[in-house]
């Protein structure tokens, strides 16, 4: 705790900060869960050391920390996935050893994972039925899924196949699955990262109701606003150890972030900057979809100029996936002129050809699309680095690829063993930094980034956002598709909203209120656009 001095502000703001967990437990009742001195090492790496944590009945307890701070390991220990090397767990007053997730569920512990374990070829109901420990008749289960999902504002159709669902929709399935088992402690790993502001509010109302009914919630997140709004107590982890506990309502974002990161964070901000020529243009982009659950794109128009960042807001599943594929070339357009890149009509060029014109792309799915899970980082640079000299005369230049990967790792402070670590050995946030770094270091003229900081911690998020802003200063045209409005407002010059396969006009962010965007997300922009046209005609 050598940095205690610097944390004094945070500490002062939360009187008696250490042990605040106990202070917050109502009426002196025994806490539902007590962790004492939990330690876990993986080889030389300390994941957790001497972690104490106490969660009272009906308490919403935030677990805060950077990527690699040990949050996930700690939660895996509570959920029985991993056994601790040392320390004790007390559940509802009795010492327990939790050997398996099944046992954890029997004790009354549920967990919503950040990475979803769903079978793509099965329906929602079938997936949930597989995950339940008891047998439930299909019809009855579907009815229960419907009632739970409606009650908690998480609309899902039990009969839909998972493979056709967006990331956001899949997460709803996971949350509903847990709630079906009526747990007494619910662990949620970054649950709001894919919800609209309205849906987050509804979820919070749900969580508060659940907490009032006596459910304890362990809430892992890096969104400080949300934690301050929702959580009763926060335990902050840094480098595997508890760096402090606090009552979030009495803290500021800055003081919480300081506890988490250990140093002062600088906010990124947009310098006023003159945009240049149009580099990416969509002209009446219309695209049917073969996927029965896909979204057809209808008459999309957009311009992104060099030296500006344009954001597309909206809930996933409204055509973002299809739009990304149409811009990247994974889906070809019916007419060449629907997509223009650096002045050329590219609607029917494949992704490699578009990349040669100066296009870069960071997709939403990191593992399996942005990177090959079983290949090492150097080989993963070859994926898009053909033009950067990583392939010459039809031969892979392994040394060049390794050098490229090493430089990317260094420049974007990616935490990994070496450039020869497999992509699937990296944490989500680190892999994202690596992919963003790879695409940026390929010096694109146009960069498309989907969900740039989904599940990425505060420090890394800032780094990624700053990197995008640096690109803008360097004259790159950047298009960001994200569900996080705060992020879009922080880095975008102009914002458009996507709903039901249509795109609103892009408006300077400063002229746009969050509430307006909320309305637009449900398709309200068409009326607004019509009004504007009339206005212009007058």
């Amino acid at each position, binding site marked *: 705790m050598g940095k205690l001095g610097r944390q004094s502000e945070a500490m002062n703001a939360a009187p008696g900060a250490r042990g605040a967990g106990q202070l917050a437990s109502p009426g002196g009742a025994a806490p539902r869960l007590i962790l004492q001195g939990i330690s876990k090492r993986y080889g030389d790496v300390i994941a957790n050391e001497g972690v104490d944590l106490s969660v009272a009945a009906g308490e919403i307890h935030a677990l805060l920390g950077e990527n690699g701070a040990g949050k996930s390991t700690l939660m895996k220990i509570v959920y029985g996935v991993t056994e601790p090397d040392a320390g004790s767990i007390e559940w509802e007053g009795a010492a327990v050893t939790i*050997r*398996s997730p*099944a*046992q954890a569920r029997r004790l009354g512990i549920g967990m919503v994972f950040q990475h979803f374990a769903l079978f793509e070829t099965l329906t929602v109901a079938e997936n949930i039925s597989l995950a339940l420990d008891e047998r439930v008749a299909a019809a009855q289960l579907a009815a229960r899924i419907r009632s739970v999902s409606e009650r908690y504002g998480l609309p899902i159709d039990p009969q839909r196949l998972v493979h056709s669902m967006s990331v956001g929709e899949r997460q709803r399935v996971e949350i509903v699955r847990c709630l079906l088992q009526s747990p007494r402690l619910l662990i949620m790993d970054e649950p709001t990262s894919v919800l609209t502001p309205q849906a987050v509010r509804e979820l919070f109302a749900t969580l508060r109701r659940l907490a009032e009914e006596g459910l304890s919630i362990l809430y892992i997140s890096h969104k400080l606003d949300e934690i301050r709004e929702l959580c009763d107590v926060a335990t902050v982890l840094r480098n595997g150890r508890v760096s402090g506990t606090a009552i979030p309502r009495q803290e500021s974002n800055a003081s919480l972030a300081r506890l988490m990161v250990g140093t002062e964070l600088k906010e990124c901000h947009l310098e006023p900057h003159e945009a240049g020529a149009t580099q990416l243009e969509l002209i009446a982009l219309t695209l049917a979809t073969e996927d029965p659950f896909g979204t057809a794109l209808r008459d999309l128009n957009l311009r992104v100029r060099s030296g500006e960042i344009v954001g597309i807001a909206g809930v996933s599943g409204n055509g973002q996936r299809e739009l990304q594929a149409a811009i*990247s*070339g*994974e889906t070809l357009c019916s007419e060449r002129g629907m997509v223009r890149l650096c002045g050329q009509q590219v609607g029917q060029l*494949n*992704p*490699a*050809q*578009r*990349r040669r014109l100066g296009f870069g*792309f960071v*997709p939403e*799915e990191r593992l*399996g*699309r*942005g*990177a*090959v*899970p*079983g*290949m090492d980082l150097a*080989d993963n640079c*070859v*994926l*898009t680095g*053909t033009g950067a000299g990583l*392939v010459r005369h*039809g*031969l*892979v230049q*392994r040394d060049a690829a390794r050098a490229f990967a090493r430089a990317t790792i260094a420049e974007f402070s990616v935490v990994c063993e070496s450039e020869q670590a497999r992509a699937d*050995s990296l944490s989500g946030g680190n892999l994202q930094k690596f992919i963003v770094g790879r695409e940026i270091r390929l010096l694109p003229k146009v960069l498309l980034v989907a969900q740039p900081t989904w599940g990425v911690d505060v420090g890394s998020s800032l780094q990624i956002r700053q990197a995008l802003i640096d690109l803008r200063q360097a004259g790159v045209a950047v298009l960001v598709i994200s569900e996080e409005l705060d992020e879009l407002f922080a880095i975008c010059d102009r914002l458009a909203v996507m709903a039901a396969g249509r795109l609103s006009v892009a408006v300077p962010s400063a002229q746009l209120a969050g509430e307006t965007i909320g309305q637009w997300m449900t398709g309200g922009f068409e009326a607004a656009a019509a009004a504007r046209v009339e206005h212009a005609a007058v």
Partner: protein
Amino acid sequence: MRLFDPSGWALRLERRPRASRIMRIVSSPLAALAMLITGFLVLGALGKDPLTAFKVFFIEPVSSLYGLGELLLKATPLMLCALGIAPGYRANVWNIGAEGQFTVGAITGGGVGLFYGAFLAHWALPAMLIAAVLGGMAWAAIPAFLRTRFRTSEIFVSLMLVYIAQLLLSYLVHGPWRDPAGQNFPQSPPFADNALVPALFAGARVNLGFVFALLLAGLSWWFGAKTAAGYRLRVGGSAPAAAAYAGISERANIWLAMMIGGGAAGLAGICEVAGPIGLLQPVISPGYGYAAIIVAFLGRLHPFGIVLASLLMSALYLGGESAQLELQLPSSVSGLFQGALLFFLLAAELFINFRLRRVRSSRTRVPAPTAA
């Protein structure tokens, strides 16, 4: 997954945190060992002395120079076919019709030898080899075209084309290509000397095809490890979405994989008919093209592994023949060994990514055996 264990413990199959490096290396030898033990248990049950059987099966066939030559001779088509299909298997392109491409290679290469052999003089053999490679490729082009154009399964199409190829060969040697001087046997005239693949050394039948197979193994390693095309095949197989993202053409991958497989199988076919067989006849292969699938997996789709695996598979063929002669065992004994090998191989493969762990079942529910 949990298996019942009466001692109050349960065996649980759980995913390893990372793939076991040791199992990756020992899985194939382990499978071969389990196959041997099973084989000898079966032989023992049939009343054969296991030691004698082992000797007959594995020692006698290779205890002479001629025998060693036979080992390499039989390994040649297995090696060629397996090296051809392995890159496709890495790329999720499942050409299981090497047997058919082998047959068509024998037909096109053999046809050139039979009808233009005299005219081509000492260019006959190179022309035959090229014709055989092109013939195998043409046969493999059918499933490739149907998959890329109509999304049909190359597994079924390539398999069905095996039977068509065999019937085509049968028609030719029963009809238009039948040797007029062959006393009505369904076979072509024998190849002239200039149309035969030369033997490597006197006293054994192993021929130049074995050298081609070794060269192909080296080439195949270089292709997979160094070239961009090999890289694209690997990405296409292990992460199709990443391949689409990178602009790797699935169509190009399918065509490339099928052409490599067809060409190599066609080459194997001509080396067989213009080698040890010496003419075209209705049956020219004891299932090399199918056994090559086992060889490819036994060699873990790695070229050098395939070289070793094809030698083992060849030894099984030889042992089976020798066991038929000396122990009066049915010819299906080779098939039994092959089948057992594939079975144990797939089982051993599982333990690369999974492990068995004994867990005390008192805390976890295990369905208790219902007492009567």
